[in-house]
């Protein structure tokens, strides 16, 4: 007990002064120093490690390869860019990759909407938790394992073949369709989660109000739910779209001979030993994603990521 007569009720004393305490107090008084300390590590990461690597890649695209020795020649030219823009094989692969990204995105949104709706608005708390875990669980498994699992599913006499066989169909096997199925499976959690979050943010009372005012279920979905969750849908589509655009492993495993931008990069870095061309190809999906992000920016979706 202190004997201070001015505050007779005080039963605890202030903690003792220490270097750490003085440091904290200094930071408390100097907001700018605080901010600088907080930001320096992430800014270094973003600015140097991340953006610098991208710029290096961009620069590489303007170099070339000595066709005889295979060495990279630091000679500035636009040959690689001209090649990927004019040669029909690159145009075809770009269109195919774009088509795959669009297809996977549409399939995932179609699957995610009802699942997310059940999670956010229908299921009770325990079912909701179980569903969230069920959706997150595959994310803990290795990407490769999942792709090879789909290789088994899609195989001749595999699960899919056998199931579809019951209704007279058969597995699409390894190829474009197989790749679409596998990629849709792989990115589905990334699409469900933002849509689920968006649906969770729609108060139940809005759905009640809509129905109260005479809107049937479909009208409520169209006029109230859809406008409110569109940012979430777009946020999810950014994942499925960009991940598909850059994927090459799943395509290699279940895609058969299907060529995408990802597999072209892989071939050029590896077998063809043409890093500058690979760098140039890599800029196609980057450019597409930039255009895509620019288009969705004004919908407010980027604040839902």
């Amino acid at each position: 007990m202190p004997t201070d007569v001015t505050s007779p009720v005080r039963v605890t004393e202030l903690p003792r002064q220490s270097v750490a305490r003085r440091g904290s107090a200094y930071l408390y008084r100097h907001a700018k120093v605080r901010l600088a300390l907080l930001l320096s590590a992430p800014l270094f990461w973003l600015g140097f490690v991340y953006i610098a690597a991208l710029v290096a890649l961009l620069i590489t695209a303007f170099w070339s390869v000595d066709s005889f020795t295979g060495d990279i020649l630091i000679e500035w030219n636009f040959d690689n860019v001209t090649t990927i823009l004019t040669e029909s094989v690159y145009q075809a692969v770009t269109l195919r990759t774009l088509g795959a990204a669009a297809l996977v995105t549409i399939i995932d949104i179609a699957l995610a909407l009802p699942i997310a709706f059940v999670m956010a608005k229908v299921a009770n708390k325990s079912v909701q938790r179980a569903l969230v875990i069920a959706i997150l669980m595959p994310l803990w498994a290795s990407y490769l394992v999942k792709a090879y699992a789909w290789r088994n599913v899609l195989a001749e006499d595999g699960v899919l073949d056998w199931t579809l066989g019951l209704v007279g169909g058969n597995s699409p096997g390894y190829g474009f369709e197989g790749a679409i199925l596998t990629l849709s499976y792989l990115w589905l959690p990334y699409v469900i989660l933002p849509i689920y979050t968006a649906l969770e943010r729609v108060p139940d009372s809005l759905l009640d109000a809509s129905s109260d005012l005479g809107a049937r279920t479909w009208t409520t979905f169209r006029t109230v739910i859809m406008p409110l969750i569109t940012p979430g849908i777009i946020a999810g589509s950014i994942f499925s779209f960009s991940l598909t655009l850059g994927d090459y492993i799943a395509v290699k495993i279940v895609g058969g001979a299907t060529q995408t931008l990802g597999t072209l990069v892989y071939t050029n870095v590896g077998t063809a030993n043409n890093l500058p061309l690979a760098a140039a190809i890599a800029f196609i999906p980057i450019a597409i994603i930039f255009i895509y992000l620019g288009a969705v920016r004004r919908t407010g979706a980027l604040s839902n990521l």
Partner: protein
Amino acid sequence: MSGTPAIRLTGLTKSFGSVTAVDGVNLDIAPGEFFSMLGPSGSGKTTVLRMIAGFEQPTSGTVELFGKDVTADPPFDRDVNTVFQDYALFPHMSVLDNVAFGLRVRGVGAKERAATARDALALVRLEGYGDRTPQQLSGGQRQRVALARALVVEPKVLLLDEPLGALDLKLREQMQVELKDIQRRLGITFIFVTHDQEEALTLSDRIAVFNEGNIVQLGSAEDVYRHPATPFVANFVGSSTVFTAEEAKAILGTKGACSLRPEHIDIVRGKAPAGTISLKGTVFETIFLGASTRVIVDLDGGKRVAVLEQNDMSTKETHRGDTVTVAIHPQFLSTLA
């Protein structure tokens, strides 16, 4: 009550798992009535309202709307509309589009519904606010938009789920007057759910007091206040001192359990008036309330009573620890069931 009731609830019951939220409610509400369901949270009043609206399906029992059984009808097929506690305005629509929503889903043309919605906004004194978004409005204004949106489709019954709960006191009092006025002008049935007894007393033609899933008392505001049927009502609607049968016999010399309002007890200086029960006691606490002072008196018989003294022209000063005489007019003792 003569004629077909606007709402008739018969044996209405709702269970959530093992919890019975509403337990066999029977109730008739007349057309044009301002009816309040008053009760603490969890008393089942909101669940009853949600079953009338169609948001909840009753476990058993029926809901009739002007003689028609609507128990199995979805909300969009019922001629009732709701003003929600959180207003439930659509954030992606302008105020005018919110109000016109009910007309839009009914297929009313764009021009006509805008005109009708503007009239509805005028009814709630929000002319010229149509182009704003709900986010740009204050709580009281949102409340009025919700009201206009529910009224624009001309429901036979309007359900209001604690609509004034989120407003501050001044605004709440102002909205009470407006609600009453709108109800009188339109002549439709209002069913108003609230936990605020003062609000229920101010607004209602009749009040149903809910407790633990059922109606414990049904009557006019005056009835419920003057003659509370149970100790619960006596204390939930206003405040009362409740005497059990034994206490009444020992302290007041009367028969049967009863309740007494604080404004029906006087602290007398000098002789108690004839015909009153006069009792001695000690002042335990005084609480100054502005227009009146609440004096808590411990009666010599061991009972603590609250007395409401008007702070009028005559200066009365009561202090903690004073020995006082209180006078009770026996006609104000309300017999409890």
